[in-house]
């Protein structure tokens, strides 16, 4: 009873709170990093060095007037932000944050659950998130959001194909579909899959940027393009949900990338005995550190690269990334059989 209900509930509460707090602070971190890249300081007024800025943002969004356009489809308009937010959050159920921890005499694994089709669960839940974007644009009953949402969803489903093909070649390497199994496979192989599958990592990273609508693929939500993109007609807390879902998706992509490519919770050189003093650092700190590096590269790229035009974006997805990913699968399969 305690094992199957209470402990997972406590883990869920901890993970959800941690994710939601990190998402709000990601917003601040992004503004700060972009500011420093542009040789300015970013938010500095609210709290010391701007640390309380997310609190100010949250209060602002909550007290804003909640407008629903008159001819909008009311049920779908309300449901769309929820449909975008829920998949971003439930993916955290299968992400392994660390190996095990001893608490009150019990050995508690640091993941909420480990289903044996964990990787497919993540991909399928992410594909549900596309609905929220399509429905947000359609239910606003207005031209610009509709066009923007069609563009955004076309972009998402195209890059989903590329990312899923790289995951296929990873499954060939890891021999399992469970996320915890991937970490163990990297431990046994003695090498992070980043070095075994560099092409897959690059395609995964680019696809991850496109999947989360991040620059340079953020055409659907660029203010200069289609007014506000698919969330033009949303205000206040509903807009906040879209915003939060985008950053939560970023954290998801980083966490999944870390688990699959960067060894999850393993310390660097996990098989080298001479570096065993590194085991003093708990496994979840390694995981969080690697995820943070991943996230920082996301922000860095946003600050640096210009935006892709929509047709360039689709060409990149279909004509460049998908063939590379398929070729990677073929080469990986051939090498696995021959070696």
């Amino acid at each position, binding site marked *: 009873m305690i094992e199957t209900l209470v402990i997972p509930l406590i883990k869920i509460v901890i993970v959800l709170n941690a994710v939601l707090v990190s998402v709000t602070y990601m917003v601040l971190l992004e503004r700060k990093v972009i500011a420093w890249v542009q040789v300015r300081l970013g938010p500095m007024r609210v709290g010391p060095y701007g640390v309380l800025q997310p609190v100010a943002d949250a209060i602002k969004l909550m007290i804003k007037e909640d407008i629903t356009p008159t001819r909008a489809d009311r049920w779908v308009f309300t449901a769309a932000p929820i449909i975008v937010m829920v998949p971003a959050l439930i993916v955290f159920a299968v992400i392994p944050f660390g190996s095990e921890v001893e608490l009150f005499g019990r050995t508690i694994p640091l993941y909420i659950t480990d289903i044996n*089709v964990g990787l497919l669960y993540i991909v399928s839940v992410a594909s549900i998130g596309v609905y929220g974007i399509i429905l947000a644009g359609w239910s606003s009953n207005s031209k610009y959001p509709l066009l923007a949402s069609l563009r955004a*969803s076309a972009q998402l489903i195209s890059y989903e194909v590329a990312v899923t093909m790289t995951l296929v070649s990873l499954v060939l390497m890891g021999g399992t579909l469970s996320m915890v199994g991937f970490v163990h496979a990297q431990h046994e192989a003695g090498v992070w899959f980043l070095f075994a599958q560099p092409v897959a990592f690059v395609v995964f990273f680019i696809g991850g940027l496109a999947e989360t609508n991040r620059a340079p693929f953020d055409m659907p939500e660029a203010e200069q393009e289609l007014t506000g993109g698919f969330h033009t007609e949303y205000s206040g807390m509903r807009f906040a949900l879209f915003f939060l879902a985008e950053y939560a998706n970023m954290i998801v992509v980083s966490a999944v990338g870390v688990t699959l490519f960067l060894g999850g919770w393993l310390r660097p050189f996990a098989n080298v005995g001479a570096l065993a003093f590194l085991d003093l650092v708990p496994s979840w700190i390694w995981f969080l550190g690697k995820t943070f590096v991943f996230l920082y590269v996301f922000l860095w790229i946003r600050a640096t690269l210009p935006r892709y035009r929509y047709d360039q974006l689709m060409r990149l997805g279909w004509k460049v990334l998908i063939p590379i990913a398929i070729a990677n699968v073929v080469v990986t399969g051939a090498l696995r059989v021959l070696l």
Partner: protein
Amino acid sequence: MGEAIAFYTLAALILGFAVLVVSAKSTVHSVLFLVLTFLFVAALYVTLQAEFLAVIQVLVYAGGIVVLYLFVVMLVNLKRQPETHADPHRRSRLGLALSGLVLAELAAIAMYGSASSPAASGAASAPEVTAMGGNVEQVGWLLYTDYLIPFELASMLLLVAMIGAIVLAKREL
């Protein structure tokens, strides 16, 4: 006991949403109810210990096929056609006749067909499946050995459909 509750709840939800698919006033709403039906069918697969099939159901059906339905429905602004026939009840009488036929067929299957169904002889229980390596391995094994030809034929079918769609939609080749 818990399984029976899960099954009946899921079945009621699936049937309810399926009825809403055909009776919703707005086409986009009926596509959304279709998505919900598929999601609850995936939940039903989970109760049957077929988690791989459940995830594939969500990924392919709910996450791929219905998204394309939704694109088409949104771009083609469908409105319900007004009835122009002389006899306004013609459609409902036809529907009643067809559903009566389907019901008779289901009753015939239930009475005569269950004794020799292949599922009863070939199914393995859940612990056996896990001992044999889990859902994914078993499905993959079967697909590539016993059911290889249907698998290859299905992929040829998808290829032909894709080529057909490109030919239909092209401006100049």
